């Protein structure tokens, strides 16, 4: 896959190295040539491009025209939105991923700005903390397709109404599905006859307005 990353901060550089290790073709754009000079040597195999990723010409020069993925991960939400919109509108990039720095801006990171998937670090951290401290609550982990689908996680408390019941008999709403059950450090691929237990971490894909129904079934 050909990936273009806008922003060579710690997030961008880390992503670039991970993607390179997975044998993807990675180009990284940053405005500051000092950043490139400092890190270029440790990041062999990655194409660097000095320029403003919010400029169409820069994106064209980095080969966005045939990129499979553009990731806008600068520390500036405005820049990330501009890069996303240009990538989608001017280069029809199939997959545009954007980083949300300030959670107040998250509502803008959607189809309207060309964003296919947004990742909000503060939101994710909150979710993880919540997940770490809470058993028996419904924790949203990730939002897909501009919020139309959400990945949520519930750790089943002892009093959960779902315990001891086969998944098929649980009566999950049609707009949702259990995608994985984490049990004792193992991943259980859910089938109709999977029986949920106390302290299972249940990952659910939820769409539409089914959150409340799912919450009622799993949390009570």
């Amino acid at each position, binding site marked *: 896959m050909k990936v273009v990353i806008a922003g060579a901060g710690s997030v961008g550089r880390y992503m670039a190295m991970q993607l390179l290790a997975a044998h993807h073709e990675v180009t990284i754009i940053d405005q500051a040539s000092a950043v490139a000079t400092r890190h270029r040597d440790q990041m062999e195999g990655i194409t660097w491009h000095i320029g403003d990723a919010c400029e169409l010409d820069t994106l064209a020069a980095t080969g966005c025209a045939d990129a499979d993925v553009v990731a806008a991960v600068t520390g500036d939400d405005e820049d990330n939105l501009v890069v996303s919109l240009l990538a989608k*509108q*001017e280069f*029809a990039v199939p997959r545009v991923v954007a980083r949300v720095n300030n959670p107040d801006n998250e509502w803008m990171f959607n189809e309207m700005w060309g964003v296919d998937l947004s990742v909000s670090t503060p939101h994710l951290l909150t979710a993880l903390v919540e997940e770490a401290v809470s058993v028996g609550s419904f924790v949203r982990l990730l939002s897909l397709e*501009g919020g139309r689908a959400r990945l949520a996680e519930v750790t089943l408390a002892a009093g959960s109404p779902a315990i001891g019941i086969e998944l098929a008999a649980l009566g999950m709403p049609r707009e949702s599905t259990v995608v994985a059950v984490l049990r004792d450090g193992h991943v259980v691929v859910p089938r109709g006859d999977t029986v949920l237990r106390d302290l299972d971490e249940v990952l659910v894909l939820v769409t539409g307005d089914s959150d409340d129904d799912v919450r009622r079934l799993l949390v009570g």
Partner: protein
Amino acid sequence: MGLLRRRAVGRPEPDDSCGPTVAIGAAEARMPVRVVGQVSRMRARPTTGVPALAVTISDDTGSIVAVWTGRREIGGVTLGRRLLIEGVALRRAGHLEFTNPAYTLLP
């Protein structure tokens, strides 16, 4: 390519020098293209979430979809209207789809 072209030559004219149009059936994905066709379908989507207008434009050779985000209608874009569309399209579920392409209303 919408912005590049708009910036380079201003408002596109159907027969000017900024490139010939291609038959819709021959249009390629991920390349700047200009196509002319008739609006055969209009759909405001979705009813919830981000508003967008999806317009299907057809000629004798096929159809493409143009999606304009953030709006549910565009003045002058009506069923049966001839349009010149230019932009870069993405292949999606078997059809080509433009996001916010440049458009010109044709008589």
